[in-house]
């Protein structure tokens, strides 16, 4: 099963990159970034999956003995947990910039912002 999810994650990463590189609208680029984020999270969580493992929450007695052979890896899950929240912060920041850019030039097209282009 982890192969399937990992493949899905990679394809979503590629879709997000494609959106970032070819779309012209800034909001669409941010959506692409959001998809990219989701794909990376899926890949990381699938890498943590152990065959036949259960969630690392020891609320049953039979999980307390020989824990290490029964659970999935908790460390990447913890990292993804913080990554999702940071992703929200970054998305909010980018959207605030997009709003400001639009009120400057009345346009969301990435081609119309050439001030720093060399």
């Amino acid at each position, binding site marked *: *099963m*982890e192969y*399937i*999810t990992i*493949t*899905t994650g990679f*394809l*979503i990463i590629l*879709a*997000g990159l*494609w*959106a970032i590189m070819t*779309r012209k*609208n800034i*909001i*669409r680029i941010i*959506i*692409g970034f*959001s*998809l990219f984020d*989701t794909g990376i*999270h*899926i890949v990381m*969580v*699938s890498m*943590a*999956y152990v065959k036949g*493992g*259960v*969630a*690392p*929450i020891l609320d049953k007695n039979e999980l307390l003995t020989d824990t290490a052979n029964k659970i*999935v890896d908790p460390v990447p*899950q*913890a990292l*993804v*947990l913080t990554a*999702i*929240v940071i*992703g*929200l912060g970054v*998305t*909010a920041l980018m*959207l*605030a910039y*997009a*709003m400001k850019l*639009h*009120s400057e030039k*009345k346009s*969301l097209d990435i081609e119309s912002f050439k001030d720093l282009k060399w």
Partner: protein
Amino acid sequence: MDFKIISALLGIIMLAMSFIAIYHKKMIVAVIATGAVGLFASIMYLFLAAPDVAMTEAAIGSGLSTIIFFYVLNRIRSNDKEGRESDEIDEVIK
């Protein structure tokens, strides 16, 4: 119970949703599709035995980020109102 087929179907649905999110003409549909990708990603996390991550994705990926997107879209819509008041209804219905 093996989750292979279910996760494959979920993956197909997610890819279709991300395709809609990238290529659909109307921005609001694209944002809804992004929210749906988060929704199904959260179910996929449950199959991968990660309930913590699933809960975070459900609350943040498909809840709060959609809300922020819509606030920004609303502000942008009210910003460039001039000259296109008449076709707004068509825009919604299309």
